[in-house]
């Protein structure tokens, strides 16, 4: 009988009531008395020199309150890159200033160079059209290889050859890897593109700024995955104001997928405008602005090589990747293609030697940063594609080659050649589970049935691993992080025994309000309904780093458990006094403090009441009140892993791919709420199928974004995807956090793209197209059809 409450229960989400009745409160839903509206003037060219911006006509338009340009923000600080990467030669990465508004040059289509604030949003937009910008268009730098060939055309004038860094991981392994390749009996080579994606959270970015001239306090309501990180970046780096003078509130946020981690110039611009006008200023992006200015994801061009024995044993792996960072460095842009990608290139395999080279390149395109999975999907796609290609070349079964090379369940802790220590796992178990659930044994029969209908059926696999729970701080510090990556929680027991739990994590769809309450309820033996989870407001929550990298439960959840443990420890002291017993004799179970071996007990509620009405209380040795905070910095990353299978049917006449089934067997460690975990995997797989079959961000040679709306950018829709089969029964709990959790938010998006592409290639090869070894994503009908004609 499954539990219906506490840890492990498939509890329905408490958040749903407000969302299902139209009572959610997103940034765009919030209005402040007297607010004005901002609209931004954005570059129509990819690359240009700003000669002059004439705002006089715009300033005289009806309702216009102020017009500001890049010049007005030139003295402000730049929006920093959060991660310092050193090149192979030891030199630090090139880090251009990222201003609030473009100044001197515009560097991508959509680069904002002016802001208008007016009484209504229509007036603000009308006035933007009246700004006269004298911009000399320069040749656009779009292609990464061309960007690196220093033609003198530079995105940033001070950065030659448009190279941000040339990173080697691990540089000391390079020679040994080359030697292994020189001696290897077989080398498989693959060149591939990891297609550029637009995150497209359904809620566009929005900001509402307020300023109180009487107190000099700013408040920013904004679409953020990490309100404290936003506050830190805006206050300390960009605006130069004390952190305590800025409150950042991220209310209900309609999805993030990475794109709302980052600080964007619009946020500082509306804060500055609110101060200048002494009125609240609101900006809500339309979808076109989102396409043009949100941080995009992926965009790698990779050459990968795998050296193996003739029997398929992996000997060495090396990659050369060009990673597009766009026109400016977004906050995690430099971490994503390096430490979230290169360190994962061992995958779940025993490959003894690995070397990764990544060159990050500036181009006249929107900034590129972490998008669901962030570096790990790129790593997984490269690895899982070349494993399939090697298997085809060597004539080895795709499951067998994986089984042969997977790290064994008895090999943990396992130190990889790319600097990580996997604490636990059982990759063969998830692989076996996947084989069972996907009915791999019945595939040939199904393929014959497809063939009878003139269709080509294929099956593709991926065995993947990721590093989540991003932290520990000391390790990421060594690796170049400029921030700590701990998290924090405060547990406030109210006098009447109910709880407010303030967390540094932020929920923008993940269901923290439900799951975190389940965890606390279980620990304290009280009902979930007595527990409120508070997040998203820097004036209420402790300094935590927010939610991304599947870190919420593993890091912020661990901090919450630590704080709850402190509550229990203090409760025992209070109970010992009230029950006239020794503290060591007090046990706490099912919400009761009890003198061991007796029936003398106090309920959790009685202890809470006593802490706030301390009439019978050890005041001389113990403070009144029952509120505890904890910070938690993990000892290691967590390593979720899994095995995926995708079955497709290709129409040989049109090249159209239909996904017939998708199976995901994952190891997330302990599962707090299976309903929510399943939902996370569904969503990730949906996005992964989108990347594999549909989505592509296309700039033309002039740097114009051709896929700039939902008319042109193919988002997965309900009829593009099947029901997914999801399993998480093969669990190896994380060994180093108190809940044994690993994180599940990104898994689906990481493991699924190679499974889909492997399935398509398999279908084509089975159909006689044995010359096809790879098709770049998105595997669209035209690409498949063209590959079949070759």
């Amino acid at each position, binding site marked *: 009988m499954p539990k219906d409450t506490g840890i492990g229960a498939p509890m329905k989400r408490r958040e749903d009531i407000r969302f299902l009745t139209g009572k959610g409160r997103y940034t765009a839903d919030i209005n402040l008395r007297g607010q004005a509206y901002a609209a931004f003037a954005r570059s129509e060219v990819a690359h240009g020199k700003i000669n002059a911006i004439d705002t006089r006509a715009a300033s005289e338009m009806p309702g216009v309150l102020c017009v500001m340009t890049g010049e007005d923000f030139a003295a402000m600080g730049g929006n920093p890159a959060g991660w310092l990467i050193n090149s192979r030669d030891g030199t630090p990465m090139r880090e251009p200033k990222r201003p609030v508004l473009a100044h001197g040059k515009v560097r991508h289509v959509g680069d904002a160079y002016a802001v208008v604030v007016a009484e209504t949003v229509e007036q603000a937009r009308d006035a933007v059209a009246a700004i006269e910008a004298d911009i000399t268009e320069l040749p656009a730098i779009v292609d990464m290889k061309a960007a690196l060939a220093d033609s003198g055309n530079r995105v940033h004038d001070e950065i030659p050859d448009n190279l941000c860094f040339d990173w080697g991981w691990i540089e000391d392994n390079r020679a040994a890897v080359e030697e292994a390749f020189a001696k290897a009996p077989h080398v498989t080579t693959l060149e591939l593109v990891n297609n550029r994606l637009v995150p497209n959270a*359904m809620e566009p970015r929005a900001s509402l700024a307020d300023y109180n001239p009487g107190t000099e306090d700013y408040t920013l309501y904004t679409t953020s995955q990490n309100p404290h990180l936003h506050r830190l970046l805006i206050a300390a780096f960009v605006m130069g104001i004390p952190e305590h003078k800025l409150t950042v509130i991220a209310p209900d946020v309609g999805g993030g997928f990475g794109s709302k981690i980052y600080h964007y110039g619009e946020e500082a611009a509306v804060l500055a405008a609110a101060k200048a006008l002494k009125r609240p200023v609101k900006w809500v992006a339309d979808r076109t602005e989102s396409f043009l200015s949100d941080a995009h994801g992926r965009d790698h061009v990779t050459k990968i090589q795998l050296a193996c024995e003739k029997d398929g044993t992996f000997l060495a792996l090396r990659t050369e990747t060009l990673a597009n960072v766009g026109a400016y460095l977004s906050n995690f842009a430099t971490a994503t293609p390096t430490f979230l990608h290169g360190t994962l290139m061992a995958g779940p395999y025993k490959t003894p030697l690995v070397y990764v080279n990544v060159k990050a390149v500036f181009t006249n395109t929107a900034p590129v940063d972490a998008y669901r999975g962030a570096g790990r999907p790129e790593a997984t796609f490269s690895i899982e594609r070349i494993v399939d290609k090697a298997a085809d070349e060597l004539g080895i079964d795709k499951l067998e080659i994986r089984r042969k090379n997977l790290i064994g369940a008895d090999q943990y802790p396992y130190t990889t050649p790319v600097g990580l220590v996997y604490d636990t796992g059982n990759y063969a178990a998830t692989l076996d589970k996947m084989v069972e659930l996907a009915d791999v044994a019945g595939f040939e029969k199904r393929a014959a049935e497809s063939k009878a209908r003139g269709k080509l059926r294929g099956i593709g696999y991926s065995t993947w691993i990721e590093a989540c729970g991003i932290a520990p701080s000391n390790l990421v510090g060594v690796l170049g992080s400029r921030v700590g990556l701990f998290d924090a929680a405060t547990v406030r027991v109210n006098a009447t025994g109910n709880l407010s739990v303030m967390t540094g994590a932020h929920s923008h769809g993940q269901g923290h309000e439900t799951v975190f309450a389940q965890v606390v309820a279980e620990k304290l033996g009280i009902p979930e309904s007595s527990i409120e989870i508070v997040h998203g407001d820097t004036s209420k929550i402790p300094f935590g780093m927010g939610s991304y990298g599947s870190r919420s439960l593993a890091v912020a959840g661990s901090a919450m458990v630590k704080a709850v443990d402190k509550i229990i420890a203090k409760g025992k002291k209070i109970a010992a006094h009230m029950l006239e017993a020794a503290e060591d004799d007090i046990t706490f179970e099912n919400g009761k403090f009890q003198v061991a071996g007796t029936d003398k007990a106090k309920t959790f509620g009685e202890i809470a009441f006593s802490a706030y009405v301390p009439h019978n209380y050890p005041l001389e040795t113990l403070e009144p009140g029952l509120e505890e905070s904890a910070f938690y910095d993990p000892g290691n990353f967590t390593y979720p892993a899994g095995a995926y299978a995708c079955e497709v049917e290709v129409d040989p006449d049109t090249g159209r791919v239909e996904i017939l089934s998708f199976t995901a067997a994952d190891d997330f460690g302990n599962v707090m709420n*299976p309903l929510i975990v*399943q939902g996370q995997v569904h969503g990730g797989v*949906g996005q992964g199928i989108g990347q594999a079959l549909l989505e592509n961000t296309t700039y033309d040679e002039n740097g114009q974004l051709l896929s700039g709306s939902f008319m042109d950018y193919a988002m997965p*829709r309900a009829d593009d995807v099947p029901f997914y089969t999801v399993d998480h029964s093969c669990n190896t709990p994380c060994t180093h956090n108190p809940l044994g959790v690993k994180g599940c938010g990104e898994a689906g998006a990481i493991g699924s793209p190679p499974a889909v592409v492997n399935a398509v290639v398999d279908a084509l090869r089975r159909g006689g197209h044995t010359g096809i070894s790879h098709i770049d994503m998105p595997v669209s009908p035209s690409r498949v059809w063209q590959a079949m004609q070759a």
Partner: protein
Amino acid sequence: MTKVTMTVNGKTVSGEVEGRTLLSGFLREGLGLTGTHIGCDTSQCGACTVHVNGRAVKSCTVFALDVAGAEVKTIEGMANADGSLSVLQQAFQDCHGLQCGFCTPGMVMASAALLADNPTPSEAEVRHGLEGNLCRCTGYHNIVKAVLQASGQDITAIPA
């Protein structure tokens, strides 16, 4: 500015609007019904779906003035009279058919109209019927499941 009058969630309402004011804007800014969300500018995402005279309409595709005199229903009008969730809303919660909640009002409105037209749709019909509503969180699995559950069909065979 022109005065417009319509019935929204059973109440007669009026407001002054510009000719270019969209129904979505009138509902959100004029009436404060912020459950209707705006997720795009090309009438592709469906987050703003409402009912106009019983039919699902993307409220960003019609001017407020064009629906003068019409019966409009929004997500705020979908719960039962006693405030409890309707069968469809309850199915969305039961099946975890929503995550960030932003597409949810449009999904519920589109699903309600779909079920009114076709009370026992097949899986393929549900997928086709919701093709005009984008969700980035759920991979659609649990949304489709919720609509099938709300139609009274047995969903126990659908995988987790």
